[in-house]
């Protein structure tokens, strides 16, 4: 009989195993030990090196589809920036993302307020919300941030917010933190803003798009890179946090092992079939 039965295996068994492998560790975490790779340490260090009270641009370019990979680095980066007493201007270039970004930032700000930090909207951080136009918005922001975003996410006049009195264009920022799930995202910020306005930049991106940004990391255009949930989990570890990325790593680890096993088994079945064929 050998492995012939595997060839006819109903794919619903595979679905069931994947489901169990993902659900199991989420219910009962295994606690796979995490390391910290160089791009993640660079990301962390880029924020750690910022002077207090400096102004940072944080562009959160994702929508709910990228929530598990994108929300954890948004939270952790925002926490680190607030603890460094930096001031943050947030933007979103994804149509469906501004609601999620605003909710994530506000929840994180509330957590920090509950811990006794004095964080005020408009003074310490501003959410400028969504603007249609992709790269055109990035270039337009170079001519004036208020020019591109006359109102914030909460419909306040941008010019009425105290933080925005100090923000003119890209020269007002010391760093761009881009949380990117695709287009428009890190690649476009590097090409349109980092290359043109020389604004230093770090990025947290989805695992699938990370390979695309490695050339920018190697050239120094990106000063740090968090790739997917693994990068976010390593960043949480560096910050001494146990967030949703850390919790998700067990499930992702097991799922990766299973997919690798599927590739190997699928090929073993085929080789066996070819050998035994008359």
């Amino acid at each position, binding site marked *: 009989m050998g492995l012939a039965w595997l060839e006819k295996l109903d794919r619903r068994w595979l679905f069931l195993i994947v489901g169990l492998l993902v659900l199991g560790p989420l219910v009962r975490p295994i606690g796979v030990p995490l390391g910290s790779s160089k791009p993640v340490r660079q990301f962390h260090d880029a924020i750690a090196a910022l002077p207090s009270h400096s102004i940072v641009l944080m562009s959160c370019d994702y929508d709910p589809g990228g929530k598990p990979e994108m929300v954890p680095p948004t939270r952790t980066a925002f926490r680190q920036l607030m603890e460094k007493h930096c001031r943050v201007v947030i933007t979103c270039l994804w149509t469906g993302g501004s609601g999620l970004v605003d909710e994530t930032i506000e929840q994180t700000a509330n957590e920090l307020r509950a811990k006794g930090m004095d964080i005020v909207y408009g003074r310490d951080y501003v959410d400028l919300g969504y603007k249609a136009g992709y790269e055109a918005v990035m270039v337009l922001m170079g*001519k004036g941030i208020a020019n591109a975003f006359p109102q914030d996410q909460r419909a306040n006049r941008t010019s009425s917010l105290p933080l925005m009195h100090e923000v003119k264009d890209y020269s007002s920022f010391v760093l761009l933190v881009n949380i990117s799930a695709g287009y428009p995202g890190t690649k476009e910020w590097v090409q349109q803003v980092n290359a043109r306005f020389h604004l230093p930049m770090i990025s947290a991106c989805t695992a699938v798009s990370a390979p695309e940004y490695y050339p920018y990391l190697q050239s120094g255009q990106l000063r740090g890179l968090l790739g997917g949930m693994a990068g976010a989990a390593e960043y949480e570890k560096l910050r001494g946090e146990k967030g949703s990325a850390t919790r998700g790593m067990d499930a992702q680890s097991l799922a*990766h*092992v299973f997919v690798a096993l599927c590739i190997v088994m*699928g090929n073993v079945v085929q080789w066996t079939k070819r050998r035994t064929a008359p």
Partner: protein
Amino acid sequence: MKRELPLLMTAVIGLLMLLSFFVPHHVVSVPADFLQQCAVIVVAFGYVLGGANALRVNLEGIAKRQPDWPYKLVLVVTLVFTVAVGLKEGRHWQDDHSTSMFLYNRVYSPMQGTMFALLAFYIASAAFRAFRVRTVEAGLLAAAALIVMLGRVPVGDQMTMWLPEPLRLGAVQDWIMNVPQNAAKRAVLMGAALGVMATGLRVILGIERSYLGGGD
């Protein structure tokens, strides 16, 4: 004139936008800024046009009772409902108990999450059934995929703890990402950039005219 005027406009605007990179004088920068603002407005109108087109195509499908017309009906009803709710709530769409936020948090967000979560299941199935190693190149691809897939998660290093550090999956994965992957990616990026430049020049010079329609 029907073709010459758009060609002339493209050439003039293309050259002006190129010039604005190098000439900061207001004679160039002011019209360039204006055109960039126009681009933002045009993109915003694109959404309106896209919505109207989706409505037209799907209403037609419903009227003709195409095989999947019930899905089209769901799309049209939800599209119209969401737009109506947004218009009604206006500036208050982000209030705590607004219908817009309910739709965003309880319908749009979970549905999009579900779509992406389903990928995990189909990837496992595809890995088992479709990822066949039949040539040396496919073998190299499969080996690299396995190493990167396992090396990117902490369990990969745990599995190869018994090996010297440079041979562990995490380290090998780092090498693959930093050396062969980066070299290939850089070549693709440079090729694409040269292609974009060539196409841009062809459009500005009026050699590339396919954007005008008409097939020439």
